C-alpha cells in the first residue's frame, strides 16, 4: 500500500506546517514554546514513519533525538529561562499578524512552485521537500517578525525542524549528516543559552530591539 504510506507521511509533514502557522501568531512566549514542542513531536513521528517506510532503522535515532531534545529538554529549559527572566507572562507585540500570515501563505505557494521540478527526478520526494521548504521559510519569517530573543530562538529551531524533515525525506541520506544536525542543534542551543543570559545581564529586556541603538556605526 504505498499510497497509504505516503498519505501518512504527508499528513505528518502537513501537521508540522500547520504548527508553523500557529507559531507565527502566538503572542505569549509560553504558548510559542508549547507549540514548538508540539512541532518537534510531529517531526519525531514523521521521522519515525520515514524510518519504517524506508526500512532505515538508523533514522529512529534521529526521531528519538528530536523527541527527547527538542520535544522535552529544550522546551523545559526555555520555560525555565523565561521564568528566570520574568518574561513568561509577557505579551509580545507582533507586527501585523494578518500580513504575516498572508506572507506565510505566499511562502507556502512559493515552496510548492520551487519544488515542482523535483517531481521529474523523484515524484515521492517532491511533496516532502515542498513541506520542508515551507516549514523552513516560515521559520525564517518568524525570526524576522519577532523582536524577542527567545522567540527568535524558537523560530530558528523551527527552521531546523524543517531541515531535518527535508533530510529524512531524501531517501538513504547518510546518517552522518543527521547525527551532526542533531548535534549542531544542541550546540546552537548552548550558544543561544549563553547569549540570552548575557543579554539579560546587560539589558533590562531580552527584546532585541533594545539593541538597535547600535546600527552600523559608532557615534561616540
Amino acid at each position, binding site marked *: 500500500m504505498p499510497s497509504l504510506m505516503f498519505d501518512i507521511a504527508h499528513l505528518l509533514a502537513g501537521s508540522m506546517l500547520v504548527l508553523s502557522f500557529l507559531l507565527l501568531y502566538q503572542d505569549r512566549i509560553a504558548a510559542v514554546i508549547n507549540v514548538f514542542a508540539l512541532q518537534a513531536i510531529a517531526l519525531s513521528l514523521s521521522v519515525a514513519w520515514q524510518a519504517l517506510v524506508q526500512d532505515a532503522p538508523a533514522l529512529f535515532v534521529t526521531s528519538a533525538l528530536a523527541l527527547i531534545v527538542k520535544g522535552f529538554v529544550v522546551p523545559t529549559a526555555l520555560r525555565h529561562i523565561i521564568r528566570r527572566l520574568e518574561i513568561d507572562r509577557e505579551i509580545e507585540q507582533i507586527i501585523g499578524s494578518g500580513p504575516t500570515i498572508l506572507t506565510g501563505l505566499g511562502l507556502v505557494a512559493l515552496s510548492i512552485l520551487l519544488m515542482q521540478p523535483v517531481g521529474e527526478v523523484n515524484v515521492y520526494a517532491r511533496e516532502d521537500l515542498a513541506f520542508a521548504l515551507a516549514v523552513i521559510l516560515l*521559520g525564517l519569517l518568524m525570526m524576522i517578525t519577532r523582536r524577542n530573543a527567545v522567540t527568535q530562538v524558537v523560530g530558528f529551531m523551527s527552521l531546523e525542524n524543517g531541515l531535518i524533515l527535508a533530510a529524512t525525506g531524501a531517501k538513504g541520506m547518510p546518517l552522518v549528516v543527521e547525527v551532526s544536525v542533531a548535534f549542531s542543534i544542541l550546540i546552537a542551543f548552548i550558544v543561544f543559552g549563553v547569549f540570552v543570559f548575557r543579554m539579560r545581564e546587560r539589558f533590562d529586556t531580552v527584546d532585541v530591539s533594545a539593541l538597535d541603538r547600535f546600527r552600523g556605526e559608532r557615534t561616540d
Partner: protein
Amino acid sequence: MISPVEAILVVPAIAVPALALVSDYRLGAGINMLASAVSLVAAVFLLFAEHPRGDLIIVDDFNIFLIVLTSFVGFTTSVFSASYIAHEIEIGRLTPAFLRFYHAMYQALMGAMSVALLANNIGLMWVGVEVATLSTVMMVGIYRTREAIEAAWKYFILGSVGIGLAFFGTILVYVVAQEAVGEGLPGMTWDLLLKSAPALDPKLLSLAFVFLLVGYGTKVGLAPFHAWLPDAHAEGPTPISAVLSGLLLNVALYALLRFKMVLSANVAAIDVGAIMVTLGMISFVFAAFMLYRRRDIKRLFAYSSIEHMGIAAFAFGMGGPLANFAGLLHMTMHSLIKSAIFFAVGHIAQVKGTQRIAAISGISTTHPALAVLFALAVIAIAGLPPFGMFTSEFMLISSTFARQPALSVALVVGLLVAFGALVLRLQDIVFGDPTGKADPAQASYVPAFVHLALVLAAGLWLPEPVVQWFRIVAAQLG
C-alpha cells in the same frame, strides 16, 4: 605513524579539551601556538605525501593549497594572538577565564575549517562550515559589551539562516545525485558528483545551487548578504577578525567553487558564472563606496574584505584559465595581506586605546615601526605594485578586458574608488598630527612582516611550481 591528514584533524581535537582545562592564559597561548604549529607542519608534509581519497576525506590540488594557507595563517595569527591577549589582560578587557574559552574556540575554529576543506562529502563540509561559524560567533561576543553582543547576535541570526539554506541546497543536491550516483554516501561525494555531473537533472541542480549560493554566499560576505560581516569584524577580538577575513571567508568561497565545478560540468544547468560575476560586482562596487564613510578602523577593513571577496567571486565567475588563476592568487594574497593588516590594526588600536579613525592619527611620529608596517600593508591591499595583489588584479583586468570590455570598466572603477578611500585614510592615520598615547607597543611585528614579505615575493617572482599548480587548479575550475 599517523598520516598528515589525520594529524591535521586530530591535533585540534586534542587541543580543544586541553585548552579548556588550562587555566593559565600564558600556557594556553603557548599550547595554542604549538597546536597551530603542528598543524602547519602536517599541512606542509601533506604537500609531499600521496594524496589520499576516501568517501569522507579527499586531498586534491584544489584544497591542498587552501589547507596550507589556512594552517599557515592560523599559526601566525596564534603568535599575534599571544601578544594581543597579553595586553588585553593587562588593561582588564578580558579575564583569564574567558581566555580559556577563547583558546579552545580558536582551535575548534581551526579544526572545523580543516574538516570543511578536507571533506569529500558535501554533508561533512557543511558540518565543518557550521561549526566554524558557531565558534566564531562565540568569540565575536567575548567582550560582552552592548556592541559586541549585538554584533554576535546579528552574525548568529544571519549566519544560521545562511547555513540553513545551504543545508537545504545540500539535500537537494543529494536528491538529484542519488538517482545517478546511488543512495547513501556515494550520493554526497565530491569526486563522484563531479564525474556524474553531466547525467544529473539540470533543473533541480540549478535550483539547489540557488540555495547554496545564498547560503554559502552569506558566509563569503557577498552583498547583499553581507550585513553581519562589518559588525563581527569590528566588535570581536582582532585575532578573530584576522582569521575571519583571512580564512573563513575563503573556506566559504571554496565550498561555492566546488559546487560551481559540478554545475559547470553540466551543460544544461544555469550559468553559474554569470550569477557570480553579478554578485561579485555588486559586492566590490558597493564596498568600495562604503569605504569612504567609515569611522571605525576595523570596520573600514571589514568593508575592504567584502570588496576583495567580491573581486575573487567576480574572477571565478568570469572563468577560464587566466581569470581563475587571478582568482586563486587573489584569494591567497587577500588572506595574507588582510590578516597582516588586522595584526597591525590590532596593535594600533591597543596603543591608541580606540578604534575610531578620527582619534588615530600620526602614528609615524609615535610608533614608526608600526606605521611602516601599516602603510606597507595598506599599499599592498590597495593593489599597488610590487605587491602580489597588483599581479592578480592586473591579470583579472586584462582577462576581463579581452572578453567583456564593459565589465572591466566597472572593475577598474571599483578598484580606483577603493584605492582612493584607502589612501585618504592612510594619510591621516600615518602622517596626520600625532594624537593619543605614545606608549611603546608590546607587540610582535614578525607575523605581519612575514606575511608582507611573502606577498612581496609573490608580486616580484612567483616560483614555477606554484604557477604550475595554480594553472592545474584553474583548469579544473573550468
